[in-house]
């Protein structure tokens, strides 16, 4: 396998008139990985993906997709990439099958059509209706099939499960994982935390056109804030807990029960609690959603 990263972005800039959509994005995605690009609407996720396909031209920075410059070798990049746009639009008068065949013809008709049919069957996609008569969910299914149908080396998926029911969401995520198992790199954007948590190995968090952090999903969950609920056997003056570095008392129900927020290691807390009779000690990891919100809250506080 080629050792170049599947995606290498350095200091990518993109402005839409006065709006600074990307303000120096840096990102690297290794081959064969599933990478989640997480951020709220308007953060710059779609803009970054569209730069990778040369649909829009960056104002600065460098970009390599599968080791190629998308501006100079756009046809090659697109031939090896499957793209699912955030909102799929197509010639409404064509049937789904005719539409897929048009797209296949743009790829030189080198498609394994039985494979296309298998993909469609897996997500219950009827090929007969006209595109204009499809629901949002069915349009999304067409998008998924056309992105996967040529077995691309790189999948760029903009909100891949948007509009799908939970069962179909699971099936699409399975299909994406299978594509990865067959060697594809997957780069997908989302603002649905559970989806990223379930699918991605690494995640890039983008806010206001900059990648705030790129990190393994597990690491992110491990190293961030936790919560602990402590119940003492008898009433205790809990102020000593607040003096431990990294500990915040979130809720004090009564003198026997507290809810704590723990930042960093738990060693100091455990040692401090050991001096008191504890009847219950429960910890919980926050969901990625809570971590994500913490990012934004912190940033807003700084501003």
């Amino acid at each position, binding site marked *: 396998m080629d050792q170049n990263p599947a995606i290498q972005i350095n200091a990518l800039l993109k402005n839409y008139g006065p709006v600074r959509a990307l303000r120096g994005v840096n990102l690297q995605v290794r081959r064969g990985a599933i990478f989640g690009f997480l951020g709220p609407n308007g953060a710059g996720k779609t803009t970054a993906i569209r730069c990778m396909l040369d*649909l*829009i031209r960056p104002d600065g920075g460098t970009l390599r997709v599968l080791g190629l410059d998308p501006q100079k070798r756009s046809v*090659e990049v*697109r031939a090896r990439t499957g793209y699912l*746009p955030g909102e*799929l*639009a197509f010639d409404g008068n064509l049937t789904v099958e005719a539409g897929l065949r048009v*797209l296949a013809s743009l790829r030189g008709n080198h498609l394994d059509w039985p494979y296309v049919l298998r993909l469609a069957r897996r997500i219950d996609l009827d090929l007969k209706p006209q595109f204009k008569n499809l629901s949002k969910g069915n349009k999304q299914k067409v998008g998924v099939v056309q992105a996967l149908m040529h077995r691309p080396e790189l999948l760029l998926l903009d909100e891949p499960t948007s509009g799908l029911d939970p069962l179909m969401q699971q099936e699409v995520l399975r299909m994406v994982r299978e594509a990865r198992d067959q060697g594809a790199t997957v780069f997908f954007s989302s603002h649905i935390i559970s989806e990223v948590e379930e699918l991605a190995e690494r995640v890039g968090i983008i806010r206001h056109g900059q990648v705030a952090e790129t990190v393994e999903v597990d690491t992110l969950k491990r190293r961030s804030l936790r919560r602990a609920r402590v119940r003492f056997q008898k009433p205790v003056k809990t102020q000593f807990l607040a003096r431990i570095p990294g500990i915040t008392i979130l809720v004090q129900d009564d003198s026997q029960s507290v809810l704590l927020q723990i930042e960093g290691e738990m060693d100091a807390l455990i040692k401090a609690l050991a001096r008191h009779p504890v009847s219950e000690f429960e910890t919980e990891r926050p969901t990625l959603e809570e971590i994500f919100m913490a990012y934004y809250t912190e940033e807003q506080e700084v501003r």
Partner: protein
Amino acid sequence: MITVILQILRRSRGAILGWGLSLGLLGFYMMQFYDTLAEQQGILEELISNYPPQLMAFFGGTENLFSPQGFLSMEFFSIMPVIVGIYAIVTGSGLLLGDEENGTLDLLLAHPVSRTKFYFGRAIASALSIALILIIVWIAFAGGVAISEQLDLGALEMLRPFIVLFAMLFLFQMLSLLLSMVLPSRSTATMAAGLLLVGSYFVNSLSEFNQTFDKLADYLPLRYYQSGYAIEGLNGEWLLGLFGFGLLFALLGWILFLRRDIRVSGEGSWRLPGWLIPWKRIRKDS
């Protein structure tokens, strides 16, 4: 590129047949009308002499009305640049911007086809769609001429005014394509090209009677349109000029398309500043 051409032709087949057959039927009917006209030439000449010359100018002029070329100009070819021009302008402005505005272009250009091939494939297909319409109409005309007792024209002679008409329509189609790359929306590009076409028609029609219009008409494309008189022979310079400007517009449009950021559905383009739009000012003031 063939794929792109075939895709557009497939999409336009209804329009090609609709325009081609309806205009062809009109032409076939007109050819039969010429026989009656020739038989009643005396009466009609007297009648027409009472019409204001400005009015006749709008329908292609009065000169040689009873000759085949004069008749064809007045009844058909003088107005066709405006009528089929609407089709040419709408298809030209929508060729790329139509798909961009509905969000389809984003998906199509994410496939392995270069922008150059995509652009020229579509431009060729849209010019071919006009050519196919005109071929259908020409076949109907040739059929009508064959039946007519008075019109002594061969099929190839009949082809000449269609070549000239095609050149004119090609020019306006490529102009509206270029304008769609420059202006913020498909509708503004259609409007601008349409205004130029209709304005050109009026100025050219009135140029016989007004010196200012006559000078202005020299700078407008319809001055170099031979209409039905092309039956007598093609003006090579005029024809090359029309095709040349059409190609120039196509090339300029291509350069702009290569540099263009493809918008997704709902994304706006540039806008005139608010202070330049009177109705916006009024709304703001109120």
